[in-house]
Structure formats: C-alpha cells, structure tokens
C-alpha cells in the first residue's frame, strides 16, 4: 500500500532534526497536559512518536484514498449549484477521510480540541497531501487560517470558532478583489458597523477565492470610510451559518481542479471584527500570508516529489535503442537534478518551518506569561530567521516545482504531452505555485532586504563554521567561494546606489542567497545521513555553482547605462 510518508525516508530525516527538541519543549510546556488529556505526550520521545504515527496516517490516506481519487477529481472538478459550491465527489471522500482521521485544527491547543502539533509536522502533512492532490491540499491546508484567529482573535472567538475547525469545518481567506491582487492595499470590500444589530456588515465582491464556499472566512475589508490605503483595512471573520455571501462563479483553471476558486458577492453579510481595526493588512494579513506561503512551499515540494516519482518510474520502464532510457546520461541528468532540487528545497522548507515553530511557540507563551530576557532574544532571533527564509522557501520551491514537473514531463517524451499519464496533471498543478500567495517576483521583494542587510550572508558564514562530514568538506569549501561571489555581487549592487539597478538585480541576488543556503542545508543533511543525501549534495553543488556563476556574471556585467535596454514603457 502506498504511503507518501514512509515511502520517502527523507521526510522522517527532516522530522527528526535536533531542533525538534526545543520545539517540543516549548510547544508542550514541560508536558503539562499529560494528565489532562489521554492523547497528550508524556515526554519528548513520546511526542516525536506521536508525530511519526500521525504522519504515517496522513501518508497512508494520501497514498491511497487521495491518490485514488485524484484523477477523478481533476476531471470532475467542483460544481456551481445555485449560489453554492459542491465539491467533486472524490474531494468529499478525501475530506471525510481526513476529518475522520482527526487531521483538522492540528496545530490548535488541546483545550479547543486540537492536536497541539508544531507547524513542522503539520507542514509535512500538507506536503504529503499535496503530493497526491495539490488541489485538495488547498482545501485541507486552509485550516491554518485558524492560526491567525488564534493569534489575534479574542477568547470568545477562540471558544466559538476553533473547535469547529478542529472538528472538520473548512476555511478560506478572502483577500483578492478584481482590482486588488498583488496590491492588497487597494481592497475595496466595504465593512460598515450596523449599530442596530451591533455587528459589522460586509458588502462588495471578492475574486479568486480558494475554497470560497468555506464554513468560516477570514475577510480583508475596508472599515475606515474615506481611506484608500492599507491603513483603512481590517480583518473580519464571516460564518457561513449567518448567510450573506454567495458564490457567483467558479473559475475554470489550468490546474488544481479540485480546489474551487470562487467569485464571491457579499450582500450585507454579518461579520465579526478580528483583533483591532486598521490592522487588517498591516499585521494580520502579513501573518496569514506567512503561514500560507509556507503552505505553498510544502505544496510545491509535494508536487515535486510526485513528479520525481513519475519521471523515475517512466525512465526505468521505457526502453529505447534497446535499453531503459534511465541509462542515457541526458535522462539521468534530469532525474538527478530533480532529486537534488527536491532534497534541497525540502531541507529549506523544514528549516524554515522549525524556525517558525520556535518563534510562534514563544509568541504563544508570551500571551500566558512574561518571557525571560533569554526567551525574548531567542524569539526575536528565530522570528527574523523565519521571516528571512519564508520568501526563499516559497519562491524557490515553487520555481523548482515548475522546473521539476517540466523535466519529469520531458522524460515522458510524447507520452508526457498526452492526458493519459499523471505527469500532465502535476505539470498543470505546479504552474500556480509560483503565482499565488505572492508571485515569485513578490517573494523577491520580501527577501531582498535580507540580502542588503547582511542576514543571508551571516547565515552562510555561520554554516561555513559548522562541523561536517569528511566527504562534505570539499563541498563546504566550494560553498564558501559561492558565498564570496554573492558578497561581491551584493557589494556591486549597493555601490551602484541606483534603485532601478537594484530592482533588476534583486532576483539574481535572492536566488544566489537561496542556492548557497540550500547547499549548506544539504551538506548538513549529507553529513548526518550520507546514504540518503550525499548524492544530492554533490549534484546540487555542481548545479548551484554554475547558477551562482551565471548570476554573478549577470550582476557584475550589468551597468547602469544598460538599464535602458530593459525599460519597456
């Protein structure tokens, strides 16, 4: 029986990272709940065993039920019936299995019926699900919207809404509008306070809303009349039980067919304010998007794994010129590169997830008691690390996901272009990953400050000091040379002191940073488990060395005079 977790030992390796010790310690508060809940762990090993077992369940559901339904869901898609969405029948079965398995509200505290899981195993579950059906992955993963309500909602909202999500109700985040996509400051959906009924009312239109007919919606709306920028926006929660939001249409998309993308019409819909007025975009959406970006990074890694599996199986099976095509270097090169990008991207994803875990757990503790000065320092450090890695994890993994599905389809030759093999679905599903939750170009915008403020370079230099295996020493030395090139390119851009020049080079610099950091993470992995990661580390080193040279050349050769050649208007 296929199991998306146990079939890939790389996952268990990532799960067992030494940083988990600290994460579990913080998340479980010294195992204080061990007597209050029969499913609470009693020590570190027990908690880790719980994560492993739950990943095993999700891996099995993903590898069987969700995988079996994926093709049907892709062909059937959701149905627009009246003003509502009916999922594809396979989606209903997937959701039923995940709810019965108790996989909703995974990261929520036990007092709200959650599992109190860290973000890291939850993120891994998202990867496992997405590997079988990326579209269903969205519906299921949107449960992490509840994090934002947990962080910024009040106790009464917690008690009323969180247990519903833990019991299987789905969520959506209603941000995008026809004229507000990447630029969310332009959101116009109107929120007005209804004095008579002592509640807020929402009116307007939202577009491209994933799972738009969800039970609970987090909605970004303009609460401050007369404003036009981000400071007039607040966050609301809308409960479908109250009515007032209808689905006007479902989009017809290239991929992720299982995930209904909706246009929503709000007609005097009753809603509750979440947190403080005017903080909607500035604070809450930023938090929401950081979680969602990690989710898309996980989805991208899942699709990459699925594409790799298909490419590998086809290359072993398909014979040309009297032998399996996997024996031709041109094909083997593609497979080795897919695997290296997959392992590197995954290492970055979970490194980032672990950082998020530490700072979020400390955040949560700070709501119960005052943090010690050491804890505050730790919280700040990991928050910064997480913020710096999140755009890299999302940006690079979604780009890799596109490259990997492209190459895996290429391995299939003409058959890959036919609708008969699952690889075409992965290639179509992959395409959105570098677009939604912030395009790659916007990830670069988020990441570039860590290039210029030296944060990425500091991380590289620290990695260079780390112990590594004998076999990895040469690669670690090469990584140092790559970091030097990065440093040189950054200096060059800073020296130019020209915003347009800076913006044009930004993607190159961010990719260089990501490449070197991912190489270091693979060096770490290969030092700990040579059999699992050494090949990927070597292949990835060769790959990124050439990439770094390319970006370095581009940046070093670009002059401010040549900027005119790039201007289009």
């Amino acid at each position: 029986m296929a199991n998306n977790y146990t079939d890939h030992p790389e996952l268990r390796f990532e799960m067992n990272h030494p940083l988990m010790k600290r994460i579990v310690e913080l998340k479980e508060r010294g195992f204080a709940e061990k007597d209050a809940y029969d499913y609470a762990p009693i020590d570190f090993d027990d908690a880790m065993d719980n994560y492993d077992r739950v990943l095993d369940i999700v891996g099995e559901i993903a590898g069987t039920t969700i995988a079996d339904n994926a093709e049907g869901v892709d062909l059937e898609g959701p149905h627009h019936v009246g003003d509502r969405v009916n999922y594809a029948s396979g989606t209903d079965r997937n959701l039923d299995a995940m709810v019965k398995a108790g996989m909703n509200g995974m990261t929520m505290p036990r007092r709200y019926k959650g599992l109190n899981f860290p973000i890291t195993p939850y993120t891994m579950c998202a990867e496992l699900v997405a590997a079988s059906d990326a579209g269903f992955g969205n519906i299921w993963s949107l449960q992490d919207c509840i994090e934002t309500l947990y962080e910024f909602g009040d106790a009464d909202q917690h008690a009323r809404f969180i247990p519903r999500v833990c019991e299987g109700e789905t969520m959506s985040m209603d941000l995008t509008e026809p004229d507000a996509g990447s630029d969310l400051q332009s959101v116009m959906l109107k929120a007005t306070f209804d004095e008579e009924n002592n509640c807020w009312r929402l009116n307007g239109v939202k577009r491209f809303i994933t799972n738009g007919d969800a039970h609970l919606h987090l909605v970004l709306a303009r609460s401050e009349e007369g404003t036009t920028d981000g400071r007039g926006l607040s966050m609301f929660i809308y409960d479908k039980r109250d009515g007032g939001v209808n689905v006007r249409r479902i989009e017809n998309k290239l991929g992720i067919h299982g995930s209904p993308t909706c246009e929503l019409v709000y007609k005097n819909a009753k809603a509750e304010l979440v947190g403080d007025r005017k903080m909607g975009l500035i604070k809450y959406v930023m938090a929401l998007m950081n979680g969602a970006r990690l989710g898309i990074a996980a989805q991208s890694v899942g699709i990459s794994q699925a594409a790799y599996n298909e490419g590998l199986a086809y290359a072993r099976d398909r014979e040309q010129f009297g032998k399996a095509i996997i024996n031709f270097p041109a094909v083997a090169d593609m497979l080795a590169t897919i695997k290296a990008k997959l392992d590197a991207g995954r290492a970055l994803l979970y490194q980032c997830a672990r950082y998020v875990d530490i700072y979020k757990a400390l955040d949560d503790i700070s709501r119960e008691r005052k943090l010690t000065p050491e804890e505050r320092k730790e919280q700040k450090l990991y928050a910064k690390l997480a913020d710096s890695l999140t755009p890299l994890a999302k940006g690079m993994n979604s780009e890799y996901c596109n490259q990997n599905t492209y190459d895996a389809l290429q391995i299939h030759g003409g058959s890959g272009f036919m609708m008969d093999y699952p690889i075409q679905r992965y290639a179509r599903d992959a395409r959105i990953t570098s677009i939604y939750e912030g395009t790659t170009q916007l990830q670069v915008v988020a990441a570039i400050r860590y290039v210029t403020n030296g944060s990425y370079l500091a991380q590289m230099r620290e990695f260079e000091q780390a112990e590594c295996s004998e076999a990895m020493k040469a690669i670690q030395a090469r990584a140092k040379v790559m970091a030097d090139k990065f440093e040189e390119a950054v200096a060059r851009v800073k020296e130019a002191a020209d915003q347009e020049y800076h913006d044009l080079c930004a993607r190159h610099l961010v990719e260089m940073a990501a490449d070197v950091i991912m190489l270091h993470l693979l060096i770490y992995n290969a030092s700990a488990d040579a059999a699992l990661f050494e090949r990927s580390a070597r292949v990835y080193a060769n790959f990124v060395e050439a990439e770094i040279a390319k970006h370095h050349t581009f940046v070093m050769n670009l002059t401010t005079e040549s900027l005119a050649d790039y201007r289009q208007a």
Partner: protein
Amino acid sequence: MSLKIVVLAKQVPDTRNVGKDAMTPEGTVNRAALPAIFNPEDLNALEQALRLKDEHPGSSVSILTMGPPRATDVIREGLFRGADNGYLLTDRAFAGADTLATSYALSMAIRKMGMPDIIIGGRQAIDGDTAQVGPQVAQKLDLNQVTYVTAIESVKDGKITLVRSIDGGIERVEAPLPILLTVNGNAAPCRPRNAKLVMKYKRATAPMERPADGQMPYAEEYEKKPYLTVTQWSVADVDGDLAQCGLAGSPTKVKAVQNIVFKAKESKRLTGSEADIEGLVKELLESHTIG
C-alpha cells in the same frame, strides 16, 4: 437505543501481495514472509459497527480476535478507529484450530463477555477463504444470522434492516436482534486511524506481549491507564473444553496441497465490430462465463 456490538476480527498473512517466498517448499503458507494484516473484510465489518456506534450514542464496540499475542495488532487497529475495547483469545491449546474449533472458542468468549445485540465479522478471511466461522458462531450461540451484508440501513425497535448481496442483485432484509452478520468486501471501506485515538491507545498491549520481568518503557502508564491493558483470555478463562479447542477440536484434515500455476493462454484480438462483439457474447454464454 444503545447497542452492544462485538466485531470478530482476524489477523491474516497479506496474501494480496505475495512474493516468491510466500510459500514454503512443502506448499504451506510461509507466514514469516508475509506481513500480518487486519483481514480486509473484517475491516468492512468494523466500519459497519462504528457507524452503528455513531448513530446510536452509548453503544459499545468490542473487538474479539483469536491468535498469538501479536494478533493484538488487530485490536489496536480497532481501537485506533473507534472501538471501545478488545479481547484477545490466546493459548497454545487454541493453536491449529479449523473453523469448527475457532467458532467454538469465539462463541465461548462471547458467552463470557455477555451476549451482545450484534455480532459482526467479515464474510471470510483471505488466508482460508472458508466463510464458515461467522455462520458457525451463530449456530453455536443459537442466533439468527445474515450473511453477505453490504449495508446496515437502520436499527430500531429491536429490529435491524440490512442490505445483502445475492446472485444478480441485492436483497433488503429485516431481522430481530440479537443477530450475527457477516459483511462483504464491497461494503463501505473502513475509516482511517484517528490521530487522537492512535496517541491514546498506541501503547495498548495484551499482558503476553510485555516482557515477563515487567521492565518496559512507560511501565507506570499501565497502572494509571487501565484501558492500555487488552483483555487476554486462555481456554480456561472462557471455560473452554480442551477437546473442542485447537488441533484436538478440529476434524478438518489437510489431505494434500497443490501448487496451481496460472498460465496465460493464447490471446485473441477482437475489433469493436458488431460481429466480433456478438461472437464474444455467444462464446461467453456457451462457456457459462456470463448468463
């Protein structure tokens, strides 16, 4: 009404994924080479039991299995999906049982547990494929039985309404409780393991699975949490008659074991033409493959 339900479950070698070392040279099943799994149709039966429990609050679902200590896996899998408790029948004297001795042991255990409203098991196990144990348990307990069940429609006023497979269709049946049911593989698949239940019951064991000296991780947990100890019964515990148990109680004798090798015969290529289709239908009718 709340129901008392017993699920009969068996741990079987996974004969669906047979490798080349699945059989010993003597032609018997090489159990060591095959993973032990929850008999698939027993999982369908468990799902029906759990649905009854969902619909009738206050109901209890108990798993009953006979086998070596490691068969407790089946009970754990049941607990992970929502069963309330489990009973392991284990004793060297139970070993080598055919269907008659097995149904005797199970019926004695059920008497000991107290008569349930519904006993439910899979139609048959994938290792023996006899489909005899369920019906024999019903006979020994003097219960009504319905076999080939694909769905339970309702339970009310002491009656159960069922759908069962019959040749060429289905049949809707009403029967009084208590009753024994055997469930087909085309009934609803079993729900997945539940995260909270797995975390709660993962250390549930039968006493015979534990080291004799009591030295094991989390030993103190077993004192605090009685639900972590699976009830384990021997022949004496269920007041069994040794002569009717295990090999001694099994009239079935294996005369010979034959290795059957399926060989592909010559293939025939058909077009989609009317004549070809008609010819094929005629041929299948003549060979009684269909009709």
